[in-house]
C-alpha cells in the first residue's frame, strides 16, 4: 500500500531568488531521505510561491522495506575459546545485534576468518520514520542569508509560520522551527486569509487554487507568460524576452494578474538601456518593444504583474506609473547633469577614487590600461591602438557620474553609460563604443564586445583586475572569489576563443604584472607570476572542457610548445582548435600507437642528461631506419611548413601521423642509447626533433588511450 506525501513549509515572503535553489535542495533532500529510509516512492513534484516551499511525492510506501543486515563480528579466533565455547567478545557482539549465538556463521575474509550474523530488520511504518527525516531536511536548507526570529538559534531565510505534513490523510507530526505540522495550509494573504484545511495530501493544488494560490510554480510562470504576451500584442508590441525577469515576477506573486502602464515618451531621449534598467532593475517591469526591432525601438509602455485579482487595477496602474515617472525623472536629471561634464574633464578626478584596497586610485588604473591596452592592440590590431588608448584613459570616468555614482539602480550601466557620455562629448564613435563594451562579457551568458577596440579594452581591464586581486592577496580559492576574478578571466578567454584572437596570453600577463612589481623582490615576483600562470592556464582548460573537449586532448593541446617556445595554453583559441583536432582523430588507427610511443619518446628525451648537439648530423646516420626517419621528418617538416602558418591542424595532424610506421620501425631497429657517445647524441637529437615537430601542436604523451594496459 502507498499514499501520497505532502510537505509544505509556510514562510513569510521569501526573496524571489532564494526560491529555486531551495526547491532543489528540498527535493533532493527528501528523495535521498526516502531512499535511506527504504521507502519506495513515485515521482516528486516541487511547488513554490513567495510564501511556501512544498514537495509532493506520489505513492510513498506505507512501510519501510524489510532488510537483512550482514553484520561482521570479531575474528573467529577471538570468538571462541580453546574449548570452542563463545567468548565474551562474541556474546557481546550477539547482544548488540540481538542475535542468537547459535546463529553465528564463520566467514572467510582477506584478513582471515571472522564470524558474522544475519540480522533481520523489520520495516517500520512510514508515518513513524518520516517526521524526523522531514524536519531534518527542512532545517538544513541553505540560503545565501539567514535570520533569527525566535530567541533561540533557529534560522531560516525568513520566519517560518506554519508546516503541513500529510501522508495520505494522516498528519505527520513534524517538529521544527518551534512549530508542529498540521493539515492547515494558508491561502492568499488578502484574497483568502483564512486557514485552508487539507483532507488529503492530494488535495493540495486544488484546495490552494480555490484560496487564490497557484502553488504549481511552473504552471504559474506559463500563465504569467501568456498574460504578458497577450497584453504586449494588444498594445501593438512584443515583450522584450527576459526569462530571469519572468522568474523574479513568478516568485513575487501567488495569484498573478498582468497590467500595462505608460510613461512619458519624452524619456525616449534617454538611451534605451537606461529606460530598460529603470523598468527592470527596480520595479521588475517588462519592457515592450516595437515588433522585430530588437532593443532599438521601445514603446512608451510597460507591463507589470500584480499579486491579486482584477480589483483596483486602475489605482495600481496609476501608482506604478507615478513611481516609474519619478525614477525616469531621476535618470533624466542624472543624464542632463552628467552631459555637462565631458568624460575627458573627469580624468583628473579619478585620483579621488580608490581602486582596490591599497592599490592606488582609478587614475593610476587608467594609466595602466592605456599602456596594457596599447600593447594588446599592438599585437592584435595596430590600427586600433589610438582608439584603445583613448578609451582606456576615459573608461572609468563614468564611475564619477551622477548616473552611476548617485543612482544606485543604474550601477549596472557602468561602461555602457560611459560610452554614451563619451560619444555625446564629441569623442569618436569608436572610442565611445570601446568604453561601452569594456565590461562585457559580465557573466557567462552575456554578450561579447561588438567592436575590436572594445574587445581589446575589455581584455586589458580584466587582466589588470586579475593581477590586482593577486597582488592584493585576494586570489580566488575554492568557492571563495571575493573580487570575481574567475568571472573576469573567463571573460577574457571567451573573447579570445570566440573571436579567434591569437593573443600571447603569457606575454599579456607579463605586461599586466609589470606595473605592480617595482616594490616586490624577485622571489615574490616569481611566486605571483607562477600563481597567475597556473590560474590562467586553469581558466583556459576549463573553457576548452566546457566546449566539449576531452580532458586529455585538452592537456595535450595546452602542453604544446608553440612557435617561440610558448606554452600551448597561452593561445586559447588556437588551443581549442588543436584540442578539437585530437578529438576528431582519435578513431584513426595510427593515433593510439603513436600516443603510446610518444610517452616513450618523451621519457627518452627527458632522461637524456647530456647536452644535445642542436641539429642532426646526417653524416653520422648509419642505420637505414634512422636515415629513413630523418628523411620522413624532413619531408613532414616541408609539407607542414605552410600549414602551421595557416593553423590548418586538420591537415597537419594526418601529415604527422604519416610518420607513424617509420617511427615504430626506427625504435624496433635502432638502439637510441648507443655506446658511442656522438652516435647516441645524434640519435637523441633526431628523436628530439621528431618530438619537437609534434609538440608544436600537441604533446601526445598526455593522451590517455582507452583500455591501455601499462607500458
Amino acid at each position: 500500500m502507498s499514499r501520497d506525501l505532502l510537505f509544505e513549509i509556510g514562510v513569510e515572503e521569501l526573496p524571489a531568488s532564494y526560491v529555486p535553489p531551495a526547491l532543489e535542495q528540498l527535493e533532493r533532500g527528501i528523495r535521498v531521505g526516502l531512499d535511506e529510509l527504504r521507502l519506495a516512492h513515485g515521482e516528486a513534484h516541487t511547488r513554490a510561491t513567495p510564501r511556501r516551499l512544498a514537495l509532493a511525492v506520489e505513492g510513498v510506501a506505507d512501510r519501510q522495506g524489510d532488510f537483512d543486515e550482514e553484520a561482521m563480528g570479531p575474528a573467529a579466533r577471538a570468538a571462541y575459546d580453546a574449548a570452542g565455547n563463545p567468548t565474551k567478545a562474541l556474546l557481546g557482539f550477539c547482544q548488540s545485534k540481538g542475535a542468537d549465538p547459535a546463529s553465528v556463521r564463520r566467514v572467510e575474509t582477506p584478513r582471515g576468518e571472522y564470524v558474522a550474523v544475519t540480522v533481520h530488520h523489520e520495516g517500520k511504518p512510514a508515518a513513524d520514520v518520516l517526521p524526523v527525516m522531514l524536519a531534518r531536511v527542512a532545517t538544513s536548507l541553505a540560503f545565501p542569508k539567514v535570520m533569527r526570529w525566535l530567541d533561540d538559534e533557529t534560522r531560516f531565510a525568513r520566519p517560518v509560520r506554519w508546516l503541513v505534513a500529510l501522508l495520505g490523510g494522516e498528519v505527520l507530526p513534524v517538529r521544527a522551527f518551534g512549530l508542529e505540522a498540521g493539515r492547515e495550509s494558508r491561502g492568499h494573504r488578502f484574497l483568502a486569509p483564512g486557514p485552508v484545511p487539507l483532507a488529503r495530501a492530494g488535495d493540495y493544488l486544488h484546495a490552494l487554487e480555490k484560496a487564490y494560490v497557484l502553488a504549481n510554480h511552473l504552471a504559474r510562470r506559463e500563465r504569467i507568460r501568456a498574460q504578458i504576451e497577450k497584453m504586449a500584442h494588444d498594445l501593438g508590441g512584443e515583450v522584450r524576452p527576459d526569462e530571469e525577469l519572468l522568474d523574479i515576477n513568478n516568485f513575487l506573486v501567488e495569484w498573478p494578474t498582468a497590467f500595462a502602464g505608460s510613461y512619458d515618451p519624452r524619456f525616449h531621449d534617454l538611451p534605451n538601456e537606461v529606460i530598460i534598467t529603470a523598468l527592470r532593475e527596480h520595479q521588475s517591469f517588462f519592457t515592450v518593444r516595437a515588433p522585430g526591432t530588437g532593443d532599438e525601438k521601445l514603446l512608451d509602455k510597460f507591463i507589470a504583474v500584480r499579486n491579486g485579482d482584477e480589483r483596483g487595477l486602475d489605482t495600481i496602474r496609476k501608482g506604478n506609473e507615478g513611481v516609474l515617472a519619478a525614477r525616469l525623472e531621476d535618470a533624466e536629471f542624472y543624464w542632463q547633469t552628467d552631459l555637462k561634464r565631458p568624460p575627458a574633464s573627469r580624468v583628473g578626478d579619478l585620483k579621488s577614487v580608490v581602486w582596490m584596497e591599497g592599490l592606488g586610485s582609478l587614475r593610476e588604473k587608467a594609466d595602466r590600461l592605456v599602456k596594457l591596452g596599447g600593447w594588446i592592440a599592438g599585437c592584435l590590431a595596430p590600427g586600433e591602438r589610438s582608439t584603445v588608448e583613448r578609451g582606456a584613459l576615459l573608461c572609468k570616468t563614468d564611475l564619477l557620474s551622477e548616473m552611476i555614482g548617485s543612482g544606485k539602480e543604474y550601477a549596472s550601466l557602468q561602461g555602457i553609460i560611459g560610452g554614451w557620455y563619451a560619444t555625446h562629448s564629441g569623442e569618436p564613435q569608436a572610442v565611445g563604443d570601446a568604453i561601452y563594451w569594456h565590461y562585457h562579457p559580465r557573466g557567462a551568458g552575456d554578450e561579447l564586445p561588438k567592436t575590436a577596440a572594445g574587445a581589446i579594452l575589455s581584455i586589458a581591464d580584466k587582466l589588470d583586475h586579475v593581477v590586482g586581486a593577486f597582488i592584493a592577496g585576494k586570489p580566488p580559492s575554492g568557492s571563495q572569489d571575493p573580487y570575481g576574478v574567475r568571472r573576469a578571466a573567463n571573460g577574457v578567454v571567451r573573447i579570445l576563443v570566440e573571436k579567434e584572437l591569437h593573443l600571447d596570453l603569457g606575454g599579456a600577463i607579463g605586461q599586466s604584472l609589470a606595473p605592480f612589481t617595482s616594490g616586490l623582490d624577485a622571489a615574490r615576483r616569481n611566486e605571483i607570476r607562477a600563481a597567475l600562470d597556473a590560474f590562467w592556464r586553469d581558466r583556459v582548460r576549463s573553457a576548452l572542457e566546457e566546449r566539449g573537449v576531452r580532458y586529455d586532448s585538452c592537456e595535450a593541446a595546452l602542453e604544446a610548445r608553440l612557435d617561440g617556445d610558448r606554452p600551448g595554453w597561452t593561445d586559447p583559441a588556437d588551443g581549442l582548435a588543436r584540442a578539437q583536432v585530437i578529438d576528431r582523430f582519435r578513431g584513426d588507427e595510427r593515433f593510439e600507437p603513436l600516443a603510446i610511443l610518444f610517452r616513450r619518446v618523451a621519457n627518452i628525451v627527458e632522461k637524456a642528461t647530456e647536452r644535445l648537439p642542436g641539429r642532426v648530423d646526417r653524416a653520422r646516420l648509419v642505420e637505414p631506419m634512422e636515415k629513413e626517419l630523418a628523411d620522413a621528418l624532413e619531408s613532414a617538416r616541408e609539407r607542414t611548413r605552410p600549414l602551421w602558418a595557416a593553423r590548418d591542424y586538420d591537415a597537419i595532424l594526418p601529415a604527422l601521423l604519416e610518420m607513424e610506421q617509420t617511427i615504430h620501425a626506427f625504435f624496433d631497429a635502432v638502439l637510441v642509447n648507443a655506446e658511442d657517445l656522438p652516435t647516441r647524441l645524434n640519435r637523441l637529437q633526431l628523436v628530439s626533433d621528431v618530438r619537437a615537430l609534434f609538440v608544436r601542436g600537441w604533446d601526445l604523451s598526455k593522451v590517455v588511450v582507452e583500455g591501455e594496459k601499462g607500458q
Partner: protein
Amino acid sequence: MSVDPARSLQEMMLALEAFWAGRGCVIQQPYPSEVGAGTFNPATFLRSLGPEPWRVAYVEPSRRPKDGRYGENPNRFQQFFQYQVLLKPSPIDVVEQYFDSLRALGIDPLAHDLRLIEDDWESPTLGAAGLGWQVWMDGQEISQFTYFQQCGGLDLPVVSAELTYGLDRIGMMLQGKDRVQDLVWAPGARGDDGRGLGDAVTWGDLWVRNEWEWSHYNFEQAPVEALFEMFRVWEGEAARLLDLQLVSPGYDAVIKCSHLFNLLDARGAISVSERVGTIARVRKLARRAAQAYAGLRRELGYPLIKDEAERAKWLAQAAEADDNAGARKKRAKTQDAEARP
C-alpha cells in the same frame, strides 16, 4: 469630527498612534536632536538591545541633508516624517499586524497591490543590520520592515521587528497628491455652530520655506571647518561620557557625530576614501554606547522583565556568558605567561 487618515497627514498620525497604542505600545515622542531615521532614537537603538520586552511607537522627523532640493522637488526633501514602531520580541503575527495597521489607515489591501520585497537593511553608522522587506504599495515603497539581527555591533538575544512608515509618501497616495507640497497636513475644523476654527494647512504652508533655507545651509552655508571641529569635539565627548557610564549623554554625542557626518557629506567635504573611515569612527562609538547600555540594563536587573523566573533566566545567562568570557581571558593570560621565558 472623526479621524479620516485620507484627509490629512496629522489624522494619519493619529490613526497610527491609536492603532499601536491599542496593541500595547508606549507612544513615545520624537527625539529632540537631529536624527537620520527613527532607528537613531534611543527608544529603538538602545531599547532593542538585551532581553527586555519593549513596544514603542512614535513619529520621527528625520534629517537627510543630502536629499534636500530647496523645496522644489515633489518627492525629495531634507526633512521627512517617519512613523516608527518597534515590537520586541517580534510577535508571531507581526506581518498581519502591520497590514491591519494599513487597514486602520483606510488602505484596502484588495484594492491595491501590496508586496513584501526583500531588503537586507543595514546601518553602517550604527553597526546595525537586519533582514526583512521594503513594503510596496502599487509599486511605491511605503515602509521598511526589519527583523533586527544586530545593533551596535552586538548580536541581539531577542529579535525585534522594526516597522517604519514613510508618512509623506503614504499621505500622498491616500490623498491622491502628486506633490508633497500639496499634502494636507491639518484639515482645519469648524465649531458646532459652523464657525471656522482654522483653515486647512498644507505641507507646503509648513515646510517649503524651511526646505529652501536648510538646503541652502546644507549645500552652501554649512561651515566645513567648524563642522569638522565639532565632529572631533563630539567624538571626544562620546568617548569621555561613555567611559563615565553616562550612557544617554554619551549616545547623544554619537547621534551628533552622525548628523555632522551627514552635513559634511552633503557639503561634499568628505572624499570617497575618507568616507568609509569616518563612518567607522561613528560606528565604533555606537558600539561602545550599545555595550555600555547593555551592561547598565543588566546591572539594573532587567527591570522591564516583569516575570521573575524569566528575569532570573536572563540574568543567569548573562552571568554564564561572563564566566565563559572570563575563562577565555584567563586561559589566554595563562598561555601568555607560559609563553614567556
